[in-house]
């Protein structure tokens, strides 16, 4: 009898149908990945396995059997035994998945005592040894510290330790590494793999990142709008996708090894031969400190860079590397503690209409109480343009230019998807007729397919208007596809800089090499080679 049997699963939230008749099996010890874009219903399936939709007003149809328990008809007592005992779940956001007020050891002990009738002291001992098992150094002492004293990666390890505590037969991981940096993500995926080899535990991995799926599972099920599109072994689904949607999905995924088929590449070559134009934006010795006294923290230490007209400079680095702070200083939103930013030779402090910015979070980058057209027209009004007719016409023109309809002028942000909202953000930046646009993680909040379209739009605009772009991101593959030159940042400094092919092809700095090795590869052999490289780098 297989570990998980799901037949004809249907889940409705009010009138929205999240999962529409999904069926699949998972054998003991096997690993299956549910891959799909946001809104495909993959997380809803994961939660359904543990019956977490009970009492939420959601209507769940079809049958779900996990480790011999029929979740739909299980009593509360049976459900309690299943959750954590037979099947355990790890969630996406390590920041908020643990209670900030209690020590981590106590939280794991509390979960363990639900399933094992043991004394408080024994449970705490169990917590310490599972923490040790997931690779947390000095587990006994660290088990007494609070979640905010752990880094993102360590907190995710602690959550995995919590899952291991009761030795479940199935582990459900819902986007376990999405919120982590690429190096930390690699370590966590390796940990999952070794734990599965040791315990023979089944794994259901939910992710939107095809590379992550390729690294860690045997079978893949691609989902779209609540239905299964394609289901089969990893090599066949990723190697030779049968369905058109899967092919489109894989094509949109930026790759490290594949040739830079990015739309901006060809024309760029022409520009390089022409004598390099004067630098449009230069930064020398930029430094920025936050906080005072004992708790001061230096985000950016002594960064200098130049940006030429029509060129795209990629800035890549993990969280805490200072890349966003650098971006905000270049635009003038943040005043540097030391150093200077010069626009076309003249030093400029504070806001400069010629240097605009595109923001990361589509939700908070547009004022929800103002129509999309009005947001775009903001820079025009600020410049003193009074003629309403002129303003509406210019805004409509920009909407068309970024691939939306002029008639959308009076619609509100909540009526648009994430991708469309980013396009509005870009249109707003263009409204100020800038010469430079700094993009701070413009696409990391979007799904792979939308990501590709927005990146393409940026390239077209750059070529047509001769804009200089600074592209700040943590995803190495996307940066490689877009940039002409790349700067790699670590703890506030640029550790390596140069043309994109040189930096990606033959990385000089060990940190860059470590970063590149951590990027998950699509095909299994490349993935195995990278894992070996990581182990060797870790040992060095």
């Amino acid at each position, binding site marked *: 009898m297989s570990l998980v049997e799901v037949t004809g699963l249907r889940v409705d939230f009010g009138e929205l149908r999240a999962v529409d008749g999904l069926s699949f099996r998972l054998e003991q010890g096997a690993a299956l990945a549910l891959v799909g874009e946001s809104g495909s219903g993959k997380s809803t399936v994961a939660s359904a396995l543990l019956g977490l939709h009970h009492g939420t007003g959601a209507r769940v149809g079809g049958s779900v059997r996990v480790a011999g328990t029929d979740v739909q008809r299980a009593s509360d007592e049976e459900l309690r035994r299943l959750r954590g005992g037979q099947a355990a779940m790890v969630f996406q*956001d390590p920041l908020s998945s643990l209670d900030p007020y209690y020590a981590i050891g106590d939280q794991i002990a509390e979960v363990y005592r639900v399933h094992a009738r043991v004394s408080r002291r024994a449970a705490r001992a169990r917590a310490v040894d599972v923490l040790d098992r997931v690779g947390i150094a000095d587990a006994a002492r660290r088990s007494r510290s609070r979640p905010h004293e752990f880094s993102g990666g360590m907190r995710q390890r602690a959550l995995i330790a919590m899952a291991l505590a009761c030795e479940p037969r199935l582990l459900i991981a819902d986007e376990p590494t999405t919120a982590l940096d690429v190096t930390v993500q690699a370590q966590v995926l390796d940990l999952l793999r070794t734990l599965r080899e040791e315990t023979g535990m089944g794994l259901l991995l939910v992710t939107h990142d095809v590379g992550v799926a390729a690294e860690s599972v045997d079978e893949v099920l691609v989902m779209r709008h609540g239905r299964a599109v394609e289901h089969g072994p990893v090599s066949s689904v990723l190697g030779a996708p049968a369905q058109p949607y899967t092919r489109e999905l894989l094509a949109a995924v930026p790759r490290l090894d594949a040739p830079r088929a990015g739309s901006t590449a060809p024309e760029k070559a022409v520009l390089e031969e022409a004598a390099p134009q004067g630098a449009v934006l230069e930064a020398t010795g930029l430094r920025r400190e936050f906080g005072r006294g004992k708790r001061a923290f230096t985000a950016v230490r002594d960064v200098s860079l130049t940006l030429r007209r029509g060129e795209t400079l990629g800035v890549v680095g993990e969280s805490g590397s200072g890349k966003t702070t650098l971006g905000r200083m270049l635009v003038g939103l943040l005043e540097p503690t030391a150093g200077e930013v010069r626009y076309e030779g003249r030093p400029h402090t504070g806001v400069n209409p010629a240097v605009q910015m595109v923001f990361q979070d589509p939700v908070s980058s547009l004022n929800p109480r103002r129509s999309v057209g009005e947001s775009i027209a903001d820079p025009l009004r600020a410049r003193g343009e009074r003629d309403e007719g002129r303003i509406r016409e210019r805004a409509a023109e920009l909407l068309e230019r970024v691939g939306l309809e002029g008639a959308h002028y009076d619609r509100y942000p909540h009526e648009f998807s994430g991708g469309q909202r980013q396009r509005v953000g870009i249109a707003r930046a263009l409204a100020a007729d800038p010469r430079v646009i700094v993009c701070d993680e413009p696409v990391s909040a979007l799904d792979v397919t939308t990501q590709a379209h927005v990146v393409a739009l940026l390239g077209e605009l750059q070529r047509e208007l001769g804009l200089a772009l600074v592209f700040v991101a943590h995803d190495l593959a996307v940066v490689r596809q877009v940039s002409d030159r790349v700067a790699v940042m670590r703890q506030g400094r640029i550790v390596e800089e140069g043309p994109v092919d040189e930096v990606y092809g033959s990385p000089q700095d060990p940190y860059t090499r470590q970063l590149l090795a951590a990027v998950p590869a699509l095909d299994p052999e490349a993935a195995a080679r990278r894992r070996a490289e990581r182990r060797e780098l870790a040992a060095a």
Partner: protein
Amino acid sequence: MNGFTGFVLRRTVGTAVTLLAISVIVYVVFYATPGNVAQITCGPRCSPEQVHQVARQLNLDDPLFLRYWHFLQGLVAGQDYSTGTSVQHCSAPCLGLSYQSDQQVTQLIWAKLPVSLSLVAGAMVLWLLLGVGTGVLSAWRRGRFSERVLTGVTLAGTATPVFVIGLVLMIVVCGELRLLPFPQYVALTDDPEQWAWNLLLPWLSLALIEAAAFARLTRASMLETLAEDHIRTFRAYGVGERSIVGRHALRGAFAPVIALNANNVGSAIGGAVLTETLFGLPGIGQELVHAVNVVDLPVVVGMVLVIGFFVVLANAVADVLYAVADRRVVLT
């Protein structure tokens, strides 16, 4: 924890500055209050000559800043005053003498403070029990009918002024049912048992008013915590609803409740004037209202400073409790 001594130092300086600012405001406001203090102190039938003597006696004719300067001197070095037959010294920090009763204001405060503190301490215990208790219950029973009833009752608490609740309670409990003696303040040091019996009714009526705010705050912050991700984690591991609400959700309500409690305790010391008047408890609030009526400036300044001190102290204690409960908060 050297951060703590730094915190204590900064807070003491902050308190001193706040209290001085308050004393200046009170001096200015009351300097302009109408009412011929000398005439009131001297008595209705005093001759102009006698009123003038009394005014000189209390140096009421000095300009405002000189009188405030004397006040500061008294605070730092104490003050000598004559009782007619002998010269007495009021040691620092001396807040001067009451115009009406010639008592040292500091003595007046020592006499009145225990009353206010006992009223507020007992009421605090009750409003926390009542308020947080109802709050937890209504969060636990969210959505069901019983929650609507509980919320209704707590809202009713704030909707009735204390002098109505206190009065009705007193008539029914003491007058008709004779369960309790009529409230009459007995010092804790004299007879703790009588002290508690006599203060039970004032505690109850003050607590009934304040409990409502705590109930609503506890319920709202618990519901807010229940929507957090970590609650979902514990549910996914089969942890029982009882301990989720009891251990985790309640802990989330701890911080806002501390903050509101500090605010309440601070203002209750001076603010429970209606309860004090109704139940005849000779506390700070009642003394202050009387002093304001007879424009007895030294007593007014003294009482307002005591109240200000306790408000700031209550907030400082709350910040410490806050930091102890939630390590992420750093004491500033």
